[in-house]
Structure formats: C-alpha cells, structure tokens
C-alpha cells in the first residue's frame, strides 16, 4: 500500500501549515494554523486560563454546512485535549485551524463525514507541529469499516465506505490512549472491540520508538502507517530548515 503524502509549511503567511493526501480515500487537505492570536470577540470567557481552539473546515466547492459544523466540533474536542493551552502566551488567545478540502470526492450533505476525519486530524496535527504550538503528545487516527459479513476492512475507499455496515474512526495518542472514537452504523460491542484492537495495532506500531530512538520499522515500514509518516515529514522539513547547522556538524 502506498503511504500518505504530506508536506509542511507550504503557506508563507500563516504561522504553520501542512498539506496531506490520503491515498485510500483520495482526500487532499490543506491546513493552516495561526497561534497564538488575539480573538476578536469575547470568546475566552468560559476558560480564561486556557487557549481557545477554533477549527474551520472548508469544502472545496460549496460553503460549509451542517456536516462541516459537526466535524469541526469533533476536531475541536480532540485538538483541545492535546494542545497545551496554558503555555506562556496562550491563555485567552486563540489557536485557529483552517482546513481546506482541496481534492477528493465531495462529501455530500447527509453523507458520512467519518471518511475524511482521519485526513482532517492528520492535517491539523501536522499544521500544529509546523506552527510550533505546544502539544502534550501527537496522535494518529485511522478509518475502519465493517462489511455486512462482519469482516473488518482497513484502507477504505469512498465506495467501500458507502457499502460498509458500520464505520469507525479511532485516534490514539503516541502514548496509546484512546483519544477519539466515532462510530456509525449497526454493530455490536464485540465488533467494536475487534475494531479497536485492530486500530490500535495500526496506530501503535509507529508510536513507540525503538531503544535507539529510531522508529521501529515493521514490514510495512517507511511511512505507510500514520504516526511514522508524521515523524518522517517533520524530520524531512527540519533537516531542510537546519541544513546549515546539520551540515556543519
């Protein structure tokens, strides 16, 4: 399987940005992060000691609707758990994440937004890293489907997702905490437990660095797994930015 492609700091005017393309679903997302910025209105009243995380999802060809609002809420909940909003300079300021869907199939109104959720999560993580927003940990997410016979499918395409009996998006942090669980369709607890184990093994392999600090590379090495490719993308960019330093050592 081909790994996802991603690059960092594509936009020059935002504090951080990233683009991410998921090979299975074909979604191409461009994300920008501005942080910390002054929020225009009094949106800080609820939690004055923390930064406010705001997420905007913009579809490529229409205006944002109910589905986008829904997925924005999910993303905001997940991301505000990993952003360290009490670092110096962040309380009462905003972390604004804008995600533009620039490629892939359109998510029609009423369609499941779960198919694009992992791509949106990965893009926002990469953009947050690029903006050097303090995070407590990284995470990785995956989309799983269960077909009518009860078999678990990974790497779903959009057509697979339509045919599946249930869809699950699970995100795990780099310390293997379950960070997000969104499911839809008909399934029972046993199925969900199997899905969770499978998703954990997909996300987990890459999250635990080996004893020498390197990422352990399994058979499906080189960034076909979410977390590993995040690390790789970041390393590539850092090597480029600090080539003057690294070359001279």
């Amino acid at each position, binding site marked *: 399987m081909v790994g996802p492609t991603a690059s960092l700091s594509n936009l020059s005017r935002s504090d951080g940005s990233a683009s991410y393309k998921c090979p299975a679903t074909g979604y191409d997302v461009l994300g920008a992060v501005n942080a910390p910025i002054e929020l225009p209105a009094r949106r800080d009243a609820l939690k004055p000691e923390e930064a406010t995380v705001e997420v905007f999802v913009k579809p490529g060809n229409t205006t944002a609707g109910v589905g986008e609002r829904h997925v924005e809420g999910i993303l905001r909940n997940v991301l505000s758990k*990993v952003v360290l909003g009490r670092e110096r300079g962040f309380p009462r300021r905003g972390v604004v994440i804008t995600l533009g869907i620039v490629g892939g199939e359109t998510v029609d109104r009423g369609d499941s937004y779960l198919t694009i959720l992992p791509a949106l999560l990965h893009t926002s993580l990469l953009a947050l*890293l690029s*903006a050097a927003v303090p995070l407590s940990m990284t995470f990785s997410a995956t989309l799983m489907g269960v077909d009518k016979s009860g078999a678990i499918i990974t790497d779903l395409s959009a057509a697979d997702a339509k045919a599946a009996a249930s869809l699950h998006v699970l995100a795990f942090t780099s310390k293997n905490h379950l960070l997000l669980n969104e499911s839809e369709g008909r399934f029972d607890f046993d199925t969900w437990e199997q899905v969770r184990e499978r998703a954990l093994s997909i996300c987990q392999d890459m999250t635990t660095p080996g004893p020498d600090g390197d990422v352990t590379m399994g058979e499906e090495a080189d960034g076909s797994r979410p977390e590993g490719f995040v690390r790789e993308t970041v390393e590539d960019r850092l090597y480029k930015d600090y080539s003057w330093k690294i070359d001279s050592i």
Partner: protein
Amino acid sequence: MSTPLILLPGDEVPSSHLPSTKSNPLKLGSGVRLLSQPSAKPAASNHILTATQAGILATDAKRNTVSLQSFSNRRYIPTTNDLVIAQVHHSSIDYFHCIVTPHTAQALLGQLSFEGATKKTRPMLKGGDLVYARVSSVGVGAGAEVEITCVNPATGKAEPGGLGPLTGGMVFDISTGFSARLIRASSSSADHGDAIDGLVVLAELGKKLESLGGFEIAVGRNGKVWIDCSAAGENAIKSTIAVGRCLQTTDDKDLNAMDQKKLVASIDKGTDDVSSLRWARNIAVLAPLSIPSPAQYPLENSGNRKLADLRPRSKAGIFPPFWRSLASCSLP
C-alpha cells in the same frame, strides 16, 4: 555530536543528551517541559523532560540549558529584551505607535524613550520612519500592549548600542529564524572569526564592500534587517540592495557557507554590462526565482583599504562600530 536528535511532542528527552554539569540548575527553554511525574524509580533520573514541539534538541553545556529548535518560519511574537526594527505608524501626545509585525496591535514607543531626549529635544518621527528598539515589556495576558524603548531607563544611554531612529538605508524582510541566526553570528563575531551558525555571508560582504566604505546593518528579531551603505557614494543604492539580496537569498535557499561565499563573490566585478550580466547569471544559478533584475546592481571594485574602513563614520555618536546588532542574543 553526531546526528541531531529530533523530537516530536510527547517524546521524552533522553537523559544522555542533557548537559551533565551539576553546578547550576538545568534551565528549560522553549519546547521542553516537565509534563509527567517520574515513575517510582528515584535512582534512575529525577525528572522526565518531555518535548512539546517538534524540533531539534539543542543543549548548552556552559549555561546548562536545554531547548528545542523548531521550524524557522514562525511569526514573531514579542519577547522582553528582543531587539526589533519597528516602523512608526503615527504619533500621539505620549507615544509613537509603531508596527512591529503586520496585522497585530501596534507597539508603544514613548516620545521620550530615546537617548538624551527631553521635552524640548526629542526626535520628531513621522509615520513611516524606522526605529531600532528593544522590547521593554509585553504586558500580561491577551490584549496587553507591547512597549518598546530605545534607551536603557537605568542609565539613560542607548544600550545596547545603536538603538534609536534609523535614517537612510533600506529594510528587507527575512525569516525570524534567520534573523536570530544573524544576531547570534554578529554578536559573537567579535570573539572569533569562524563561521557561527554556518553564516559567513556577513563577513564576506564586509570584506567585499570594504573598499566602498563598508555598510551598517541592524537586525531585528521580528524578521527585518536594515542595511545602509551610504558611505559608498554613488554606489550606495546598488550595494544596499546587493547586501539585502544576498541575505534574503541565503535565507530563502538555505545556502551553506560555501554557497554563501560563491554568492558574495558573484556580486561585483566591475561596472560594465558584460560583467554585470555575469553576475546575473551566477545568481540565477543559485537563486532562480527571487532576483528580478540583478543586472541593475553591479558593484564597483576598487582598491584595497583596511578593515577599519568598514566602521562607519560616527554621526553624533549614535552609531556603534560596524555591526549594529552587537546586542546580546536572546535565545528563543
């Protein structure tokens, strides 16, 4: 030090990479925090340091600090004691309202916070004028006003040297990471002549423009660099732009020391069209996009003069020798 250690948020900083001096307590810079309690093994290590940003681990054994160097294109966020190049937007009774970074609230510069300024004699700055200033306070919390000053209130002097209005010259935009590098390089270049942080472009430019009277440079942490070559007479504009372009190209293309030397060497070589075209071609190799018409900026090459000539004429005692950014570098 072999390969740089790259950490992602949540990664623990291996204790083998920490400075081992015990004399003063370990200081944590940006990107490294104590997030978790140590596990129940007191002998192993007493603290768990966790990275909170993606970056390269940087340690300083002498000052016993550890920090992460993150991506360099970040927006500038004012920090106390940073040196910045600000542009006056408008003036009010007590303050000059200055722009430090675009699209952010204006910083306040007191009408009297200049060296030797009194109510009778104070600089009359207009909108658009430039000042080299130090961030004196950033306030607390959101919506706080950033204050900048051109004078040390304790001594009444423009400390570190060179603070004050910038007259003449031209400002170029660079990335904030590159401006931090320039400040580090120029503040320590007095001690040893080696390339600091892989930067030789300033020293090379200094040698090159020695014959034209040298140049003045002021580096602001807010990603601005001000260059003035007014000593160069009729070549002043050309050399100012050449210096600025060299710095911008070094920044954009992440040039290493060798390429920086090549870039600087490719500047002048006479004033006739043929050689300036050659410069154009050389630059085009290094910087295919960023230089619109380099053929306009050839520099003259005349006789040798000593390095002392690099020091600019001291006008009214405001200007420090050669580099303006002698300031202590404040690490992020």
